[in-house]
C-alpha cells in the first residue's frame, strides 16, 4: 500500500486531570458520539496519481482504540510517564487515524492523550472535539461539521484535476515564488543528522509560567510593542533562544526560517472539527536581526503584515491544493528541493487560550491541556505556545540528537529570560 504521509505526522493533545476520571464514563461518551464514530472510521486513500487523496469511511477498522495504562511510581507534576509518551499504533492509510490513551497515576491523577493523524484535524479541531466530548458527545449548540466523504467521492477525476491544474498553478505561483525564496539555503538548524533512514525517538518538555510571571511577560511584550501580537513576541523570544544554542556550538549557521500556521476558520464559531483549516505564514530572520528582542519582533511584524497585505496565506492554500494532487514522492522532492531537505529551522505555533472555560472535563478538575506538535526530521524541533486560564505555557518537542542536555538547559534559560526581560536585562 502506498504511503500517504511524511514521517512523523501525528499530533497529540494531552489533558492532565487532578482528579480521577471514570473510565467507563469516558468510554461511554466516546461510543455515544457519532462524531467520534465517524472520525475513527475515516482514512485517506489516493487511488490514482495526480488526483487528490480522498477520505473514505471504513467499517473494517471501525474499532476505536482506547488504551489504559497504570503508571507505577512517582512522576513529576508535568510528567506524563517515566518512560515518555506511549508509542501510538496508528497508520495514516487505514482507520482509525485517531486513538486515546488513559494514564492513571498513583496519586489519582489521570492523563488523557488524544493522538491523531495531522490530516484528520488541526490543533483547534482537536480542542473543539474535546469540548464536544465534555458536553457528553452530543451536538448541542452551534456545532456544525462538513461531511468529508460526500463531496470528495464525487466529481474529482484524473481528467478534471489535470484540466484544473493551470488555474491552480496561476493562483499558486505567488506563494510558490515566495516560499521558494523564503526557504532558500542556508537555513539555521539544530538537527545534526540528515539521515532519514533512522527515526530518532521523540522527546518533549512542558514549560509553564505562573500568574506573576505571566503578568511580567505580558507587560514586557507591551513594552516591546507586541501588545496585540503576542504570538510574534513568543516567536521572537524563541528565535533568540535558538540563536544562543547555535552560537554556543560555534558553527556558522544560516537564516532562521519558520513556518507558522494560521487558522482559516471564521472567528467565534464552533467548528468544523474535521480536516486542516489552516494556512501558513513564512518568516525568514537573518541572525543579524536577532541582536535585540525588539529588533527580532519588529522584523517578524513587518513580514507578517506584508504577507497578509499581499494575500499570501490564501495563495499558499491554493499551492497546497496543487501539491496534494501530486504523488507523494514528487511532493517530497518539491518540498525538500529548494531547502536541500532542511525545510525550516523549527516549527512554531501559538494556539492562544486552550479550551477556554474548561475547568473540568467530564467532571474531573483539569490541571493543564497541552498540544504536542509532531516533529518530522528535519527540522526535528517544534515549539508550541499557548495559554491556559490566561497563563503562558509552552511545549517543546524534539527528536533525540537535536539538543544535548547543556543545550536544552541553555535554551530554557534564555527563553525564560527573553520572555520576562529580553533587552531590559
Amino acid at each position, binding site marked *: 500500500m502506498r504511503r500517504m504521509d511524511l514521517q512523523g505526522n501525528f499530533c497529540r493533545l494531552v489533558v492532565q486531570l487532578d482528579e480521577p476520571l471514570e473510565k467507563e464514563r469516558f468510554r461511554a461518551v466516546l461510543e455515544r458520539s457519532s462524531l467520534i464514530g465517524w472520525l475513527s472510521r475515516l482514512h485517506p486513500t489516493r487511488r490514482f496519481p495526480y488526483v487528490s487523496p480522498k477520505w473514505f469511511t471504513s467499517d473494517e477498522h471501525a474499532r476505536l482504540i482506547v488504551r489504559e495504562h497504570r503508571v507505577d511510581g512517582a512522576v513529576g507534576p508535568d510528567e506524563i510517564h517515566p518512560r515518555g509518551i506511549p508509542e501510538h499504533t496508528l497508520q495514516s492509510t487505514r482507520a482509525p487515524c485517531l486513538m486515546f490513551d488513559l494514564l492513571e497515576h498513583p496519586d489519582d491523577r489521570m492523563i488523557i492523550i488524544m493522538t491523531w493523524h495531522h490530516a484528520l484535524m488541526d490543533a483547534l479541531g482537536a480542542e473543539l472535539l474535546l469540548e464536544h466530548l465534555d458536553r457528553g458527545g452530543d451536538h448541542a449548540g*452551534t456545532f456544525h461539521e462538513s461531511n468529508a466523504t460526500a463531496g470528495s467521492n464525487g466529481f474529482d477525476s484524473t481528467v478534471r484535476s489535470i484540466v484544473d491544474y493551470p488555474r491552480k498553478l496561476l493562483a499558486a505561483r505567488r506563494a510558490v515564488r515566495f516560499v521558494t525564496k523564503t526557504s532558500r539555503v542556508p537555513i539555521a538548524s539544530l538537527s545534526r543528522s540528515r539521515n532519514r533512514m533512522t527515526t530518532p525517538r521523540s522527546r518533549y518538555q512542558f514549560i509553564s509560567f505562573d500568574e506573576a510571571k505571566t503578568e511580567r511577560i505580558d507587560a514586557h511584550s507591551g513594552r516591546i*510593542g507586541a*501588545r*496585540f*501580537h*503576542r*504570538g*510574534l513576541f513568543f516567536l521572537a523570544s524563541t528565535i533568540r533562544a535558538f540563536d544562543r544554542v547555535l552560537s554556543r556550538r560555534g558553527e556558522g549557521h544560516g537564516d532562521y526560517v519558520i513556518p507558522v500556521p*494560521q*487558522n482559516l*476558520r*471564521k*472567528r*467565534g*464559531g*464552533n467548528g468544523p472539527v474535521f480536516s486542516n483549516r489552516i494556512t501558513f505564514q513564512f518568516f525568514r530572520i537573518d541572525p543579524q536581526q536577532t541582536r535585540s528582542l525588539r529588533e527580532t519582533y519588529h522584523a517578524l*511584524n513587518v513580514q*507578517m*503584515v506584508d504577507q*497578509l*497585505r499581499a494575500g499570501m496565506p490564501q495563495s499558499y492554500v491554493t499551492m497546497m491544493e496543487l501539491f496534494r494532487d501530486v504523488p507523494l514522492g514528487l511532493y517530497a522532492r518539491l518540498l525538500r528541493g529548494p531547502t536541500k531537505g532542511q525545510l525550516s529551522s523549527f516549527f512554531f505555533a501559538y494556539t*492562544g487560550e486552550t479550551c477556554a472555560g474548561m475547568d473540568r472535563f467530564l467532571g474531573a478538575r483539569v490541571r493543564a491541556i497541552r498540544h504536542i506538535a509532531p516533529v518530522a526530521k528535519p527540522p526535528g524541533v517544534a515549539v508550541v505556545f499557548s495559554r491556559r486560564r490566561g497563563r503562558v505555557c509552552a511545549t517543546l518537542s524534539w527528536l533525540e540528537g537535536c539538543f544535548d542536555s547543556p543545550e536544552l538547559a541553555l535554551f530554557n534559560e534564555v527563553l525564560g529570560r527573553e520572555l520576562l526581560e529580553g533587552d531590559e536585562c
Partner: protein
Amino acid sequence: MTRTQDTSAICDQISGFLRTSVLDEHVAFSRESRLSELGVDSVSLVELLLFVERRFGIMMPESEMTEENLMSVETLACWVLNSEPQGGP
C-alpha cells in the same frame, strides 16, 4: 453629513467586513462589542486594519495601536474619522 453620520457610515463598512471576512455567521455583535471578546485575534486584527487601509487609505501606525482605538468597531471608526485629512471635497 454630520460627524455622527460619518461615524455611522464607517462603522457599517467595518462591521460589514467583520461579518463577511472575519467572524462566524453565528456571532452576534454590535458596534460597541469588544473585538477581543468576539474572537478577533492578532491576525484578524491585522486583516481588519488592512481593510481600513484599502477602504479609507489610512494605515494605523504601531504607536496608535492601543486598546482604546482597537476596542470596538465604534472606537476604530472614530479613529478613522479623526485620521482623515482635514477639509476636502
